[in-house]
């Protein structure tokens, strides 16, 4: 290689074209080195194993140990993963602290850095700082609100409810009606529960109504209808606020829903179970190898056949093959792989000191996989256009470098120099192509909610199927008190 370089630098009149291919190669190589920020499969595998083993503290520690692997480009993702695992480990204060930092980072990333954008255009989107999807931003506030609620700090949880409202209002201004994620039924439903826990029935009603409207609006793709308990909430709050017209409308819309008036429930205590079930979808690459000659087409088909027989992509082989061919342009796009929960619902039983049980079933309140799929589908046209433009640019740069090197090398050395530089630059162009597979993978697949109103007193709580976070809890409930419980079910 040093011989090739010294030969190039001895060229006289072709000095610019000599420096140019070398520079292009250096740029490509450098950018690839800088862009190596893709998510690690092992990291999430270890986290999931820890959660499966019922050791969320270890999961939180794994996230913390991998802080360097997340890197500066994935500070938001690190905060989200760490915040979530710390919540499951019961360290709610620390969880809120890191999630607050993640939220501040999201705000900071509003300003796009042109240097990062250029690097990403020449390599892949992993060179960009991870901003997170809109639904993930809302989930940051949801997880924070739950952290405060579990600690009984309803006033602080309401700060998060207000932030959720602001965030969703901004989103609904930005996203056209009926075209994407612009509202969040679960986030608004949780806000309603928090306002009601604080005794603010007016704001609770507004949040419940917004939640119901959001569930209806998202019904086409969210795979989650409005939970029956939300319908009872609407009837109860409209009745208590003497909103006669609204009450009649909801009564007609939900004739079968059983509900109790506020005057009855004020004397009772409420237990809210939030169950995180399953695992959020992960992302993987789909490679589109675009041949620009018949020979290249045959090569792609042959390589595809071999890859299918191997059941996996081999990026090293692809890099060498396509680099040698010089006639294949690779485009990488992300694809979601769902990891669905096997638990359709939970049963929460509260048993008082006399052994009398009160049992309620949980209802699905949020399908995170559906949100992730919608979010990716909405962004896919832009991701594809960017990937195609990037692939074309990388190919043109590699082609320019190869031809420049051939010219500089002179007639005798041109063929092998062209082959070498082509292999290097086009191979690098193929090797550097990778989809941005980052996402908040420590989220669950679904969130279920169960709510029980019981007379004040002491209760033993049991949940089936049981996950981590609710082991044989004994609760002492006061009149009007709302207690939040969180559990994680990995199945």
């Amino acid at each position, binding site marked *: 290689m040093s011989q090739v370089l010294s030969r190039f630098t001895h060229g006289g009149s072709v000095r610019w074209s000599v420096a140019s291919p070398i*520079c292009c190669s250096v740029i490509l190589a450098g*950018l690839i080195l800088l862009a190596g920020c893709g998510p690690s499969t092992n990291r999430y595998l270890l986290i999931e194993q820890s959660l499966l083993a019922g050791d969320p503290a270890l999961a939180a520690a794994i996230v913390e140990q991998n802080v360097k692997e997340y890197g500066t480009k994935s500070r938001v993702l690190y905060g989200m993963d760490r915040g979530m695992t710390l919540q499951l480990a019961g360290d709610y204060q620390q969880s809120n602290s890191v999630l607050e930092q993640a939220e501040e980072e999201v705000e900071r990333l509003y300003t796009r850095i042109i240097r990062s954008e250029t690097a990403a255009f020449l390599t892949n989107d992993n060179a960009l700082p991870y901003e997170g999807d809109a639904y993930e931003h809302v989930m940051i506030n949801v997880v924070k609100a739950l952290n405060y609620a579990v600690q009984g700090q309803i006033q602080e949880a309401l700060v998060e409810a207000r932030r959720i409202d602001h965030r969703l209002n901004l989103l609904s201004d930005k996203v056209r009606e009926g075209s994407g994620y612009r509202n969040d039924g679960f986030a608004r439903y949780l806000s309603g529960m928090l306002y009601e826990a604080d005794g603010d029935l007016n704001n609770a009603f507004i949040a419940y109504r917004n939640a119901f409207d959001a569930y209806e609006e998202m019904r086409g793709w969210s795979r989650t209808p409005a939970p029956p308990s939300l319908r009872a909430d609407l009837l109860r709050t409209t009745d208590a606020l003497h909103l006669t017209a609204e009450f009649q409308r909801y009564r007609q819309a939900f004739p079968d829903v059983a509900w109790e008036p506020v005057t009855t429930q004020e004397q009772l205590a409420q237990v809210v179970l939030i169950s995180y079930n399953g695992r959020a979808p992960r992302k993987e690459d789909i490679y589109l190898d675009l041949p620009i000659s018949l020979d290249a087409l045959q090569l792609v088909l042959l390589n595809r056949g071999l890859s299918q027989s191997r059941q996996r992509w081999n990026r090293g082989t692809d890099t060498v093959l396509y680099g040698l061919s010089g006639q294949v342009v690779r485009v990488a796009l992300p694809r979601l792989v769902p990891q669905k929960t096997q638990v359709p619902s939970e049963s929460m039983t509260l048993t008082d000191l006399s052994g009398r049980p009160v049992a309620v079933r949980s209802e699905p309140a949020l399908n995170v996989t559906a949100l992730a799929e919608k979010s990716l589908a909405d962004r896919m046209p832009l991701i594809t256009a960017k990937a195609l433009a990037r692939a074309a640019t990388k190919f043109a740069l590699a082609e320019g470098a190869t031809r420049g090197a051939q010219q500089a090398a002179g007639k005798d050395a041109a063929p092998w120099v062209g082959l070498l530089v082509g292999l290097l630059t086009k191979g690098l162009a193929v090797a550097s192509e990778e989809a941005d597979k980052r996402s908040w993978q420590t989220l669950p697949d679904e969130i279920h909610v169960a709510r029980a109103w019981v007379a004040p007193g002491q209760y033993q709580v049991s949940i089936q199927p049981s996950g981590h976070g609710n082991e044989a809890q004994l609760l002492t409930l006061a009149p009007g008190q709302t207690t939040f419980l969180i559990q994680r079910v990995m199945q």
Partner: protein
Amino acid sequence: MIQNTRGGLRIAACAVLLLSGCGHETKVTRVDAGLVTDLSGRWNDSDSRMVAESMVKEALEYPWLGNFPQVNRRQPVVVVGTVLNNSHEHINVQTFITDLERELTNSQKVTFVAGKGERDEIRTERKEQAMHAREETQKAPGKETGADYMMKGSIATILDEADGTKAIFYQVDLQMIDLESNVKVWFGQKKIKKVVEKKRTSF
């Protein structure tokens, strides 16, 4: 040889350009505690201090404070109730309350007594004294000073945001309530408006 060097320099320049921007430095500067430092647009120490000073000034100018000593021949005793955070931020309300207490106490026109949160600790200490301290140094129970007024309030925000520009409107409301008659003798209000602009692109 010169051209060789130039080529090398060019490559080195490319590499330096790529690796530039990775470093960072921490710079610490001591500033006066009274200096206004608006960094993020959120509620900060300057807001807390400025609102407290302004509210106290307003409270002291109103006649309720003059009327009380004339009738009772002593300073009014005030206890701080709840200052509710109805905002979009996790504001440390205690800092704001301490600012208010300090300003009002230093005015020497009002006496403050311990609020609900502090009283428990003090009562526990008195119980401990009754058991463990010398008799002549023990503080007897039932000699607390009852408050004449309770100061309550709220901090609320209204947000408006579009295209990277955010307008934050803070409204702080405080009221002094006569504990005997429930009459509101003073109502103070302070508003702050901030505009935070974020650039969409940067180099």
